[in-house]
């Protein structure tokens, strides 16, 4: 049955939201039982187009509410309020191995959500478009300030929350890909935590001297936070993903300077030669490079480089000495790091040492390595450029399955925010 175009009313609320906020997608004024397709389209900063789509049938009131009604088919199915975002994937014909990461956090991610007549699988451009809205997704809340940091030879960006402060602080570390990745720190600042994104593998100082930074670089970053007039020096956390976990655990346990209120470690491991430099940790991984495997698509699996988890205590951070609350977030299908096995070993070490009450482990079945803020598209594998000299480009297998991984991201982020809020904003607890 043909629907009169002008009658259809599509709305997305909020039309301007933070990237971790849910929205409600509603279509009204349809004929009861009308078949339609929702289509989401986003052009990322690199110029690639990403899309998601889902088939719905209007109810007896002529309405479809994506938060309540099931998708029958498409890039997601079932009742999935945010499916139009997390199931976004590169349009047919795109380059392989793409990963969506916002570089400029001061502008929003813009998504166009449209409604088409009938159940379309592809070829949207020549179908009957009934209505369309534009939605903005922001990493920065109003009033959040972005402050580039160059003191102490750091390459970093500090995000200060809205308001006079002072605020709790956080050092935010990404992994082996290097570069200065700001979006998670911007989002954390939007939640009231003054967060510094730190480039520690490819900072200016390394480019100039050719030397990888060491412990003092991180201690300097910590000090910048601690001494900042708008940051509470006694309430500083660290959050690390992948190799960022290695750094976080090392600092949390061994540094005389870094005194953390809490730490969050995502998809990482405590396995590293202790007492050595950061460069020596990287060399240790490289030594085991022969354990690299490839799947049937020639995608690189690096999880075995640190397996089996060593029994030699000089090759693991001494978790028994940890004195602050720690949250570990791991995907059980992580193909890049043995994060699950590491988490289990860390738990055992802490149980033996008597400090396991500090530990929370969030472990997700069928989730992969890249556990990021929620509602962002999933990449089971993507091109990865190493920071070695010379760099190599591979297709890294991260692991995970779309739906389980997306659920894991949502759950882990929510729990991470609660954990950080409790430890940074709540009553001060010192030590074990």
């Amino acid at each position, binding site marked *: 049955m043909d629907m009169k175009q*002008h009658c259809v009313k599509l709305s997305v609320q*909020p039309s301007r939201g933070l990237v971790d906020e849910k929205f409600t997608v509603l279509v009204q004024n349809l004929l009861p039982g009308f078949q339609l397709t929702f289509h989401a389209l986003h052009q990322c900063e690199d110029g690639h187009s990403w899309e998601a789509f889902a088939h719905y049938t209007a109810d007896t009131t002529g309405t479809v509410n994506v938060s309540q009604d099931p998708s029958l088919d498409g890039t997601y199915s079932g009742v999935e309020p945010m499916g139009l975002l997390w199931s976004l994937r590169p349009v047919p014909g795109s380059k392989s191995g793409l990963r969506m990461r916002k570089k400029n956090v001061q502008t929003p991610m813009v998504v166009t959500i449209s409604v088409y007549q009938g159940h379309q699988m592809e070829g949207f451009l020549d179908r009957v478009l009934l209505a*369309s*809205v*534009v939605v903005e997704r922001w990493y920065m809340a109003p009033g959040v300030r972005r402050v580039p940091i160059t003191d102490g030879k750091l390459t970093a960006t500090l995000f200060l929350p809205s*308001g006079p402060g002072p605020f709790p602080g956080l050092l935010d570390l990404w992994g082996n890909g290097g570069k200065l990745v700001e979006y998670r720190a911007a989002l954390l600042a*939007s939640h*009231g935590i003054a967060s510094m994104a730190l480039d520690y593998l490819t900072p200016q100082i390394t480019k100039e001297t050719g030397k990888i930074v060491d412990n003092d670089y991180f201690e300097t970053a910590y000090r910048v936070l601690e001494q900042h007039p708008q940051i509470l020096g006694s309430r500083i956390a660290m959050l690390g993903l992948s190799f960022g976990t290695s750094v976080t655990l090392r600092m949390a346990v061994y540094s005389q300077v870094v005194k953390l209120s809490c730490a969050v470690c995502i998809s990482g491991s405590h396995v590293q030669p202790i007492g050595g430099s950061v460069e020596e940790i990287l060399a240790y991984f490289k030594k085991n490079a022969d354990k690299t495997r490839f799947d049937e698509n020639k995608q690189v699996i690096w999880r075995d480089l640190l397996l089996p988890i060593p029994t030699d205590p000089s090759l693991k951070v001494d978790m028994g000495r940890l004195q602050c609350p720690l949250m570990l977030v791991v995907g059980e299908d992580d193909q890049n790091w043995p994060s699950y096995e590491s988490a289990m070993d860390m738990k055992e070490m802490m149980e033996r040492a008597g400090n396991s009450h500090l530990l929370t482990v969030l472990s997700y079945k069928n989730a992969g390595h890249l556990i990021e803020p929620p509602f962002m598209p999933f990449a089971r594998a993507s091109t990865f450029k190493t920071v070695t000299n010379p760099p190599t480009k591979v297709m890294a297998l991260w692991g995970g399955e779309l739906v389980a991984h997306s659920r894991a991201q949502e759950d882990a982020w929510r729990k991470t925010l609660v954990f950080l809020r409790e430890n940074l*904003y709540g009553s*001060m607890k010192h030590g074990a």
Partner: protein
Amino acid sequence: MSHTGPPVVSVHPSRAMVDEAFKVQVENLPPGSPVTLHSLHQSEDKDYWEAFGHYVSDHRGTVSVADDLSCGGTYTGKEAMGLLWSMRPVPGSREGLRLRKLNVCIPQLVNISVYSGHVGGGFREQDPLASALTERWYMAPGVRRIDIKEKGVRGTLFIPHGPGPFPGLLDMWGGGGGLLEYRAALLASHGYASMALEYFNPAEVNTAELELNYFETAFNIVRDHPQVMSDRVGLFGLSLGSIVSISLAALSSVVKPCCCVCISGNHTHARGGTIGGVFNEFFKNLHKVRMDENKYEIWRGMGLPIPDDISQKVDVGKISCPILLVNGDDDQNWPTVECAEDMAQMMRAAGNEHLLTRLEYPDAGHLIEPPYSPHFRATKFIKDGQKVILLWGGTTKPHSDAQEDSWKKILAFLQQNMYSSSGPRAKL
């Protein structure tokens, strides 16, 4: 020593349309502590506007403006949006100020802060415990803004995002003149291709000569736009804009509006059919203008008694589309409720009263704006090249309720008459 961290103010959503409600919360306060929630906005004219409410945190140290009672300030009681609608110029400001967004492409910024204790003033001289900035937008993402300068008509057209075509609206403000875009931008954000029309400039004498055909031309510019449904174009007016709308709906042989929304209007007929003619009718009764104790001008007397002579009134019996009248019964600028009653009688006699819906709000004034706007009880106005202050009327809380309620009903009326597949219907 164990102690909690700093309090946190959150506003959700942090970026919203101006007619969307928000939730303001403060967390991590000591339990049972008296605090003041404060809002601050600096207008495009650089004036400061503020509102505040007095609260006491609960046992968890939380204040939720949507759920808790304000026991003092510029508003009291359970008022989720009180920090916006009860805003007024800060002490020491110029008299007769009115808040009107001129640049609708950027948001209105409001800073929401929490202060310790129950504070009544001097907010700029002390540090808040915490604050959060929130954005209030007149334009949804994707709405397009187009300058219109054709066939002698001046205006701004706002087109919703999407394939269209969309129902259209001609949006007209009142005798203050100029080009005010904000309501048209907001209506476009709700799916109506809306043109804010510039038609009167108190400083330009010749705009008073504008006749009905200027408005007919403007209406047709909207109607003929490729993304507008030519059989679904309506009229939206306030004050003088309502008079124009009523005249067009009843008298024009050229334009056929799909429906009309008329806020604080009347059915004064202009001899000679010009805007100047309308003012001439008003000012025939200049001697009936009164002044209140502040020397603010009360014009409502000029409209009373409603003339019996039908040649002085627009023949509303000729209106053939649904029409919604929105008025406040404390309107000190014009006896709009009495006029609405007279219009109803005329339409009853003509047999088209089924097209009329009247909304009348107790203690609301003349300037019924989109919801959560501050209440403008008396503001500066240029009359005959002179700066005076006109009393618009209304009491803040009932006036704000009227703005909120009427907007909801206006949107429902527009939706019914312009979007519904079964076509226009008379009553809501």
